[in-house]
């Protein structure tokens, strides 16, 4: 057992505060980006609409074909595509691109989530988030060194480390996909988690109680924290998906676009597809959490399952997300309903962490409070 280093613990708290401050500025930058970009996107849309209108009258090019010009371009005559059912057939294809192009007036980002224009505030926001995450990493590390063990032994540590993982996962996903529209959401949640940890759950550095002294703590809890971070991302996406699909329906029905900032957010379908993929990974993670928890419970208490409150809620979360995966494969349950299931699942995760840890007495009462 390593000795406690209180100085390190104090450094850690200082870093946590610094990180929270940096994230807060990043949050403001993200919010500014949403506001500004939606304004400039609106201007682009208006210009494009005007151009379309004049083009349609002068050249009589169908607007829909404009989006898929490459695919529908007429082929040189005499190449015999007809007989070979070759390229000429392509014009017969129900042009799915064209149909989604009509919806594009109300939104810009697509499934690939690549944005054309530069967004200076968003860049600043991401840079600040990276800085915040670096300071946050230092905070988590000094906490670990101070306590001489993994930094997830009580609620304060679960929250601060969990917040770091959420921020890190978000930044990692950013490398592959432009999810900057999620910035306000994710960074906002991270700030809330850090503030809650410092205000409500603060605990000085200390040793682990014997019940937690096991390598299963490292395995079980780290996977749980990682899965929860992924669920946080999909929660944000599912919530946005509901708003976006409402907005899309309003616009399709000819209503006014009251949620202009949602221009920056991809279509509801893109959000749904991406959150499904992330949820699938997180579900596997949660399955491991549940299993490793059961193995640990067997080692610690002699039974792998005993319907302890924490076990009950872990099970409930697992079943809700299994329901989500089934919903995605059930006709009539994709889209909005699946998004609701993903949201309910996340609310259960939050409930399991906050209420169950603090107010339900069970074998898992390690909140450290």
């Amino acid at each position, binding site marked *: 057992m390593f000795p406690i280093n*209180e100085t390190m613990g104090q450094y850690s708290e200082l870093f946590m505060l610094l990180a929270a401050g940096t994230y807060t500025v990043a949050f403001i930058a993200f919010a500014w980006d949403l506001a500004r970009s939606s304004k400039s996107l609106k201007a682009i849309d208006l210009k494009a609409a005007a151009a379309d209108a004049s083009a349609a009258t002068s050249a009589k090019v169908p607007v829909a074909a404009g989006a898929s010009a490459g695919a529908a371009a007429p082929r040189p005559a005499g190449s015999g595509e007809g007989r*070979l059912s070759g390229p000429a057939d392509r014009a017969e294809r129900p042009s799915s691109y064209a149909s*989604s*192009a009509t919806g594009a007036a109300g939104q810009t980002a697509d499934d*690939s989530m690549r944005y054309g224009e530069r967004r200076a505030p968003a860049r600043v926001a991401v840079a600040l988030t990276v800085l915040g995450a670096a300071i946050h990493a230092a905070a988590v590390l000094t906490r670990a060194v101070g306590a001489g063990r993994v930094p997830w032994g009580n609620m304060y540590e679960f929250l601060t480390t969990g917040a770091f993982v959420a921020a890190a996962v978000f930044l990692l996903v950013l490398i592959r996909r432009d999810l900057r529209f999620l910035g306000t959401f994710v960074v906002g949640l991270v700030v809330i988690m850090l503030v809650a940890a410092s205000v409500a759950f603060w605990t000085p550095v200390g*040793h682990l109680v014997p019940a937690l002294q096991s390598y299963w703590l490292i395995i079980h809890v780290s996977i749980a924290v990682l899965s929860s971070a992924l669920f946080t991302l999909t929660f944000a996406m599912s919530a946005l998906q509901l708003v976006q699909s409402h907005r899309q329906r309003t616009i399709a029905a000819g209503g006014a676009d009251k949620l202009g900032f949602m221009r920056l957010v991809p279509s509801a379908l893109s959000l749904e597809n991406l959150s499904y993929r992330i949820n699938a990974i997180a579900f596997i993670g949660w399955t491991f959490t549940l299993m490793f928890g059961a193995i640990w419970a067997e080692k610690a*208490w002699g039974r792998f399952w005993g*319907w302890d409150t924490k076990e009950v809620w872990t099970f409930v979360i697992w079943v809700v997300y299994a329901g989500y995966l089934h919903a995605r494969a059930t006709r009539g349950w994709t889209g909005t309903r699946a998004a609701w299931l993903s949201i309910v699942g996340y609310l259960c995760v939050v409930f399991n962490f906050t209420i169950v840890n603090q107010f339900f007495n069970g074998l898992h009462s390690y909140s450290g409070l």
Partner: protein
Amino acid sequence: MSERVKSTEKSPAEDAPQPGPAHQGAPKDAVKAAKAGAALPSLGIVGMLRWAWTQLTSMRTALFLLLLLAVAAVPGSLFPQRPANPSVVTQYIKDHPDYGKLLDSVQLYDVYSSAWFSAIYILLFISLIGCVVPRAIAHYKAMRSQPPRTPKRLSRLPEYGTLVVPADAGIPASDAIEEAAALLKKRGYRVEVRHDDGARPSLGAERGFLKEVGNLVFHTSLIGVLVSVAVGGLFGYSGQRILVEGDTFVNTLVGYDQFTPGTNFQSSQLQPYSIQLDKFQATFDRESQGKFGQPIDFTADVTTKENPGAPAKKEVLKVNDPVTLGGTSIYLTGNGYAPVVTVRDGKGNVAMQGPVVAKLQGENYYSSVVIKVPDAKPDQLGFAGFFLPTAFVTEQGISFSGDPDLINPQLSLNSYYGDLGLDKGAPQNVFELDVKGLKELNSRKAEAGGITLAPGNTYTLPEGKGSITFDGVKKYVGVDIHHNPGQLSALMFALLAVAGLIVSLYVNRRRVWVRTGTHEDGRTMVEYGLLARGEDHRLAGEASTLRSLLAGKWNLDADNPETAPSNSPPAGSPEPKKDQ
């Protein structure tokens, strides 16, 4: 496979017969089901049953039952549960006279063995079996049959493209198709080449059968987990025992303080091993201010014997580190102090001597003590009070324990005499003293005051009833002993389930068709199309990989506008809508 028939899948489905999913999701089955439903009144019993079965094994029902299971599990965390804590339940019913009994009548204190909870998961698993078996059969057939026949219009597939091999390359359509087949085989596809129409040979290819296998393994393994848990409940047993330093536990029914047999338990199952507690050591945090006095280590040194005649073995028992013996596991689940006392009766004889297990009540091992001395003559004696390892008294005269270690141990007791009621044979809680029928000798309110003892002290009871000596303090541990024969197979099935899940989520089932034809001017025209079954966001990637592989084979420029993939939309424009 998936109930959602994607809009883009519909058109090829007309041309290419797909191995019909046994699942109700298939449109055909849905129609059948609808017909069955419509014709309900005239169908009679058999029809009704068939209709009910169809409903039960539908994906929608599975989803409904899953969500219902989640909801039904919740009350178990809101109300105390009998299996975990029977005494808390009894107390809860007493505390809530208005609805406590009512909750009991709907089994809310036994949620996980209740009729309604069982009904939900049994229905779910019946639905699961009804779902898995037909799917397994269908998939077995699909794996043995050839890829479906080439659709007439490949251009309707979600991924589609063409390549043109120039006339001077000298690759006729029949060679081109064979080369494409070889290439697909190398990529793990099962391929069938069709020359049925000489001028326009084609091939059908399919891969990713493991996806469905994974899904079936996953669902079947869940049944395996359930069965393993049931086996554990039938043949397992568990029990508890408190061991004071020096005590030995022998694995027989009388050795247990508390014993819970499984439904099919036989006492002959118990192997008579023994385990003796030699020493118990608790370490407390002396470093950090916030956690000063918090336990950081519990270690029990024990001596075990597999059988009465077997050689003794020294072992260490710790939290999170059980000792296994005779097919059972022994866990360290609790510990505390056991003050050693000697009680002499009114006649001066030793009526009781030994450690008394003190039950934890509060911070820093503040524990309650009950001593019953039925052998005391002429009157039976009883004591009740507290043990404090480090006694402190506040200014208001309230005593508390200031530290978990034995710094200033103190025993404070009330004493009683009379009939303890032990002779009537009714079982009594050893940790409780019923003082109703007893006469008080010592208490704070009594004339003689309470008894306060430090180790080594003796107190003489009033009225010549005897004396009590506090000899010293030993430690005790609480151990749980478990035998669960279903455990290992539950773990195996769980691991199998995860493996199946990962395979089913990450293997993609895809079909590829290629058709070639020789043009009048000698060029060889190649067209190909791809179709995914189920969720597959990498289909476009596979299409472009195939395209560049084919182009590479024939030395074509994959990005040539002449042969450019028709499916990659201009950068920045949306991908096709997959569903909705």
